[in-house]
């Protein structure tokens, strides 16, 4: 059980590292997927090893997968839009949301 949680922690930290350091927006989205998967591993591990009564953890993981798919769709559409308007998806280039 602890090993699963440690694995999920490492995967989450890798995803966090990617989100902080990537300059490419698609790279940031890929790191986000890693973080989602770390959370999913935690849910399923707790579901197996800690008393839950039913498959609540796996149900939550399924919903997370669905939400992550929606998030990836919207994120990549936004990436395409940004690319069309700015000719680049480097996060340093578009800071129009910053006052």
């Amino acid at each position: 059980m602890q090993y699963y949680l440690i694995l999920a922690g490492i995967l989450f930290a890798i995803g966090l590292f990617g989100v902080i350091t990537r300059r490419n927006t698609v790279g940031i989205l890929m790191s986000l997927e890693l973080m989602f998967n770390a959370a999913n591993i935690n849910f399923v591990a707790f579901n197996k090893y800690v008393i839950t009564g039913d498959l609540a953890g796996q149900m939550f993981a399924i919903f997370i997968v669905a939400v992550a798919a929606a998030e990836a769709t919207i994120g990549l559409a936004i990436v395409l839009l940004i690319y069309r308007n700015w000719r680049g998806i480097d996060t340093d280039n578009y800071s129009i949301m910053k006052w």
Partner: protein
Amino acid sequence: MAEHASVGIMFWILAIVVVVSGFLVVSLRNIFHCALFLMLCLTAVAGIFITLDAEFLAVAQVLIYVGAVSVLMIFAIMLTRDLADKQIPQTNKHAMLAFLGCTAFVLGIILVLSGTDMWRWAKTPLPVENVMTIGKLLMTKYVLPFEVISILLVAAMIGAIVLARKEKA
């Protein structure tokens, strides 16, 4: 909790694959290679789900992540092709600081987990019919989240189409 020894061996192999390919995802320069290693990493996570008796989730992971999301990522990389150039640095100047912070995060988690044993361990095993149980739960206890997630997916799909279509001339 009598588990077969092979499950443990499988877990260690898959864990190494997950960590190594995950690290390559965030550290490689070529963004296309990153996407391919992301696929490998997500497949290994599906294997981890199998060692945790979550067969349906493993199959869904392969279908949705490896099948759909990764292909979507590769599409986005292809459409923004000049970004996949090797010459462009893919990381910003915070790399060292971020690495230190994430290492501290991992060490903290390991420290906390090694000193904790306060969970109520499961006495009863999970239902054997994984898919059947999930199907029943989806249609009874979790029917409202199921419907909400369907609406969310439709909204995301329509939103993506509206965002990504070309402006009419």
